[in-house]
């Protein structure tokens, strides 16, 4: 997959429509355009309050003083940068072609690129941590609108890994002790040990999570019939079975339960979750993050 295929002009143009809104940005970060709960030196007026000794004179509303002869301060939302950490799955299952040759990996990389673009446009700080069975070299914190090209270059050169090991990846990320921010986890979440192995680890991470699940069309109902031998594309493990309608139906039920478990976790954790279907345009799907309140402020 070449870089021009991955990030074509149409894709790059469509990025202008996106905007990342975080519900809460921790105080103490670098100055940025994201609204923070902290009142400070931003440009967006929010409220006034009586002056108290020690307040900044520059914030006194002199018009009110002229009318009421009392000192009031104008309060603005202080805009801080939002650390955005991308954990992107680079296991083999992300590259397994689906119907029409669609790959989860392409969608995942485009999603990371798009969200990075929006974050950098809003002067947020972006870091990318790819993971697979082995640890891959991360992209350290990048900020500024010029950093987007670095992100694209990095994503284009990102190598493919082997297995999905979410709990190890999350544990490694947690040990980095990064400033609290938005954790965007992009994966198919098909850890062989199941969600119960890694959801507790994710739950213990203080960052606010956003789960982007990349999926293939019809992955919940595999078109398999007859005696077959299914091979795990990551581990090479095989399983011989007799595929029939009943098995496919049970498979769909298990898949639905799996998705439901992820959604329940996000709901309980106050996290966002978005399903991205490989093969469909990525940016319009990402827009639902903001238009349909998938990720709310």
């Amino acid at each position, binding site marked *: 997959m070449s870089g021009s295929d991955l990030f074509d002009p149409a894709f790059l143009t469509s990025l202008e429509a996106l905007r990342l809104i975080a519900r809460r940005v921790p105080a103490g970060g670098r100055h940025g355009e994201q609204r923070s709960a902290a009142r400070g030196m931003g440009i967006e007026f929010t409220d006034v309050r009586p002056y108290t000794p020690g307040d900044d004179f520059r914030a006194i509303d002199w018009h009110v003083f002229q009318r009421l002869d009392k000192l009031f301060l104008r309060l603005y939302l202080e805009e801080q940068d939002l650390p955005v950490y991308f954990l992107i799955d680079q296991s083999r*299952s992300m590259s*397994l072609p689906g119907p029409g040759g669609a790959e989860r990996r392409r969608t995942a990389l485009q999603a990371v690129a798009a969200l990075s673009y929006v974050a950098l446009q809003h002067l947020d700080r972006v870091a990318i941590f790819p993971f697979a069975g082995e640890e891959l070299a991360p992209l350290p914190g990048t900020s500024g609108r010029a950093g987007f090209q670095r992100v694209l270059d990095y994503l284009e050169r990102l190598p493919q890994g082997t297995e*999905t090991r979410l709990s190890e990846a999350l544990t490694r990320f947690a040990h980095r002790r990064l400033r609290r921010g938005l954790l965007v986890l992009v994966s*198919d979440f*098909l*850890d*062989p040990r*199941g969600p119960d192995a890694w959801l507790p680890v994710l739950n213990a991470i203080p960052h606010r999570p956003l789960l982007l699940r990349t999926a*293939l069309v019809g*992955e919940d109902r*595999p078109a*398999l019939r*007859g*005696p*077959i*031998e*299914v*091979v*795990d*594309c*990551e581990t090479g*493990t*095989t*399983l*011989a*079975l*007799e*595929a029939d309608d009943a*098995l496919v139906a*049970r*498979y769909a*039920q*298990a*898949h639905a339960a*799996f998705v439901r478990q992820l959604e329940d976790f996000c709901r309980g954790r106050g996290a966002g979750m978005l399903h991205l279907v490989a093969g469909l345009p990525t940016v319009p799907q990402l827009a639902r993050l903001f238009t349909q309140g998938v990720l709310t402020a």
Partner: protein
Amino acid sequence: MTFAGLSATWVVAGLGLLALALFALHLLRVRLRRVAVDSLLFFRQVAQPLQPRVLRGAPSRLLSYLLSLAILAALLLAFADPWRAETNPSRVVLVDGSGSAAHAGVDGRPLLAAHLDHARELAATEGLGPRGSVFLVAGELTPLLAAGEAPHLLAARAAGRVPTGSHAHFESALLAARGRLRAGDEIVVVGGPQALPETMHGVRVARACPAPGESFGAPAAASPAALEPIAVHVAGAVPPAVALALASDPELRQVEVAAEALVTVADARAALPASPALRIEDGAGSGPREAQRTPRLPFPLSLRDLRRTDAPALLPEPGETVWIEDARSGAPLVAARRDPARDGAPTVRIVRWLVEDLGHADVPRLVLHAVRVVAAPRLPPVCSAGTEIAVPALDGAVADLRGPVPLRLLPSQGVYRFAVDLPGTYRLELGRRHAEFRAVPVPAAPAGAAETTLAALGGTRLWLPLALLALALMAFEAWLYHRGRVP
């Protein structure tokens, strides 16, 4: 029976090609379709796993292949038997059992009996060869004797056969016989129509029709395994009680000529042929005698009141087993041994005074049991599997039969009886004596049970159902493999 008349070389070559083809089939046969999936997470939850097909299954598949080969080879060997010696010419003897064979010959016997005697002589003297056999043509073809079987079985299998049908059946019989033979072999027709072809595709057709009334020689020696009357020849002066006992037993047939006898009962002065013998001897010495059984007596006797105040006893001979002895002196009164001077024929010696009492119940018992003991066959060096063997128990000891199925044998009526059902080498241990013999597989022909036609039995038509059966077996195994039921 041979495999479609092919030589063993061709059969081996064909088997090799079949093995190669079979191996290719095993390599190419349908395997489970492999499908790469992103994860087995959900499959493990919902699927009933079949047996995995991984590399370690290869030995099992090889085993399956070898098993298929073994099935084929076993079928071939069991039914087609292509490896029998092919150098000797074979002959199929067709015995006329048509209605004309019901007529009596000059000797008063039916011609069928004469035909069967002649066929037996042929089988005994010239042999049948590896592909030969004897068939009775009487309306339908009845196999009587297969290659390798003892000729004396012919009489037993033909017993009770009634001549039926016409000579017309010989045409189909000749064709069927030709299908079993190869060029250079021979078809011998005993009786039957006068007009016969000289050859049939390289197989010579010969006639062996005895002239009416022609003697067919002495009757065959009584088969050890066949339950025929024991031919007894009495020579010399034997006590009346002995003669009476011999005459009263319907299972004994007294013959005049010693050469026809299976057992000779004689006094001490008569010359004994090389056959089992019961010798009545006067004995030597004197003194009070009281008959007493020894533990080695192989049959029951009471011996009550068998005593004399002054009577002789037998002189002991080396290698003898004493059956009855004098209770006082231990001198032998009845003893048995194998006589090396008479080709190992068993001999039982009885002191005369012991069998002189006409009214004693043990006298005929002793004589008749002794006759049966000595008449029991000696161990054959080679016999057909399934043959029932009776070995005289010269003493009452337990014998051990070592072989594929070990047995402990107890004597019954003075005889160890057992059947060697499985082919193999057997060793019969009688105390310190032992004898080894071999049981060979019985050819698939006939022991008088199945009556069928030659065409159905073999020749060129057998290989087709065999091949179909083998193919069906392989297809079934392949289906099991495809369904994942076998590794």
